[in-house]
């Protein structure tokens, strides 16, 4: 359902994504792993049509993201990094706005909102302004917005970042419950998450794919059988943290 070929994105002299190709089929939950700045978010921004690729092609459900952006975007539910939402709205107003923009009317809109609210457990805070909500609820509002139109493709940038263990568990169950009939990409740097929800994982470093396989495949690459070690072996750390504080 998602096909990416030779995807490149440059910002001035910096190459954020340096030639990524991949396919995601229905029923797959693909985990994007990689250090901060590896190009995970940039790739997601290109799949969802927020920024244009410098080179390469992205097709979502048969629609080229650059040439038929609205058809592709209609098929995608997107949770951007940090789950941005309009702080002055209540969740119910916000979801109504998204439903309108997505072309859902009256009954269809009401049903979609009810389903999304039930799945994300937002019932208790529907009339509270979003800016007053806790981080966990804000994230759920973002999730509800992403799944509102029951899209065949879900793209989620760090869906569990900053949540407590219970909330993380809830979000993971939600993703799992939807995975059978969708193609899902999530990015994360929490390695246990890959094991918990992903059917396949890709490790990205400096804008390139350095490993691609099931979580078990990746574990097999390390003699210690620990995902942490695979991650550290394959990716480049930022400037070393100087533990002793000497120059």
């Amino acid at each position: 359902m998602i096909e990416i070929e030779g995807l490149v994105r440059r910002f001035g002299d910096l190459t954020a994504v340096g030639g990524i190709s991949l396919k995601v089929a229905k029923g797959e939950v693909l985990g994007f792993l990689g250090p901060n700045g590896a190009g995970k978010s940039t790739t997601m921004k290109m799949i969802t049509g927020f920024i244009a690729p410098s080179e390469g092609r992205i097709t979502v459900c048969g629609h080229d993201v650059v040439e038929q952006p609205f058809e592709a975007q209609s098929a995608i539910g997107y949770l951007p990094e940090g789950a941005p939402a309009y702080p002055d709205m209540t969740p119910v107003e916000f979801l109504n706005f998204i439903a309108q923009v997505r072309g859902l009317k009256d009954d269809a809109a009401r049903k979609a909102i009810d389903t999304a609210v039930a799945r994300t457990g937002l019932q208790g805070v529907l009339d509270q302004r979003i800016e007053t909500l806790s981080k966990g609820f804000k994230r759920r509002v973002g999730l509800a917005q992403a799944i509102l139109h029951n899209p065949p493709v879900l793209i989620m940038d760090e869906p569990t970042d900053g949540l407590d263990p219970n909330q993380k568990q809830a979000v993971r169950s939600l993703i799992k419950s939807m995975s059978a009939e969708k193609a899902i990409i999530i990015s994360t740097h929490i390695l246990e998450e890959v094991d918990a929800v992903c059917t396949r994982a890709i490790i990205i470093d400096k804008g390139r794919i350095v490993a691609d396989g099931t979580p078990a495949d990746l574990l097999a690459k390390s003699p210690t059988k620990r995902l942490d070690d695979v991650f550290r072996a394959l990716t480049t750390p930022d400037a070393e943290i100087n533990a002793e504080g000497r120059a």
Partner: protein
Amino acid sequence: MSFWNATAAVFRREFFGYFATPLAYVFIVIFLLAMGSFTFYFGQFFNTGRAELDVFFGFHPWLYLFLIPALSMRLWAEEQKSGTIELLLTLPIPVSAAVVGKFLAAWAFAGIALLLTFPIWLTVNYLGTPDNGVIFASYLGSWLMAGGYLAIGSCISALTNNQVIAFVVTVVACFLITVSGHNIVLDFFQGWAPTALVNAISSFSFLTHFAAIMEGVIDIRDLIFFGALIGLFLFINVVVIDLKRAG
């Protein structure tokens, strides 16, 4: 999703958004206080002894110079700062619909603030017999002028994610375009520049066109001037946003 459905959805969100926060009320109160105090205190409205609102409308360009940028500064800068722009632009709607929807909402809001100055119209009708046709034309001209300032402000707001910068730059830009028809500026050119140039500079001035409408003659050329100016700046606004996303 048609252009106008998307525009309407964005319009509704933005327009009711004003009233969800104290912004709307603070703005309207300051707007009315400023309009009133300038007219009665500086403009010596009662002492002129004439049943007309020229004094009142005469202050509009100068008050708009500060009040309209306060309204327009957040239009795009806030979305870019908070990340909601990523949400908005990955929805299946054209950028132009988002630009027009936001602009129309701000313009309608400015229109409401302007309409709430009606007590002064009642006052002048109570005290004498003014030419209500001229007053109607002046109101229309004032609203068109507000639209012109808003379009410039919206465009500048898209260039930055800092609302303070958007405000300051918009004030300066609006000041220049306002005074380009004032004698202070024209005298500077009059001595040496060809008449055609002086006329061209003067023809870009809001003051020139607003003064013409305030005479009570709604000339199609003045309407076209404001319409074209709004169209031009909204078009640039769309281009600015598209350029930021280009690969």
